């Protein structure tokens, strides 16, 4: 079974989720490129990437489950992992930035 034979009620949410994921990711990256101070630059990728990744992984779960006629939930592993680790990376980077700017002043 290929993607040609999928029913409409699977394809339509997948299209919407893929488009939303792509737009969110590109907005996050443009924010990373354009915003001025580091603390403003930080919040774009750490929010937008997580949401975009959630959209894309949900679309992937929908398509692969419909193709195999059973629930395939491998993508939940990636989702849980990213949701756990992305705030941790952001927090550590923020603390590193505060530490470095304090060390520069002295």
């Amino acid at each position, binding site marked *: 079974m290929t993607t040609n034979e999928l029913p409409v009620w699977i394809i339509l949410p997948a299209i919407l989720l893929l488009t939303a994921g792509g737009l969110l990711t590109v907005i996050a990256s443009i924010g990373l490129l354009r915003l001025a101070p580091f603390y403003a630059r930080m919040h774009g990728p750490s929010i937008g990437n997580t949401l975009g990744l959630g959209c894309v992984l949900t679309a992937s779960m929908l398509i692969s489950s419909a193709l195999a006629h059973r629930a395939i939930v491998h993508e939940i592993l990636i989702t849980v*992992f990213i949701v756990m680790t992305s705030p941790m990376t952001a927090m550590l*980077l923020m603390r590193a930035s505060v530490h470095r700017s304090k060390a520069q002043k002295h």
Partner: protein
Amino acid sequence: MNTLFELAVTFAQFCFALAMICATIRLLRGPTAQDRTLALDTLYVSSMMMLVVLGIHSSTTVYTDIALVIALFGFVGSIALAKFLLGREVIEP
């Protein structure tokens, strides 16, 4: 409907390529080291999403495992760089 699906997949791939280009520019240009670390973090997440969309396009589940490995190693790399920027030892005894 299938043409629309192909179009959506191509659009998502284009968006991720654009996101990777933006992150690469910030990686090359970033004034401080933490900017570069943040850009590297964004770059690996974007490449992971590109792999997931490739897996949707070719309707296999092989790419999911590759994406999981990229997520693991990217997280370890980002945490190691951030702890190095904090001025501590990367691996504390």
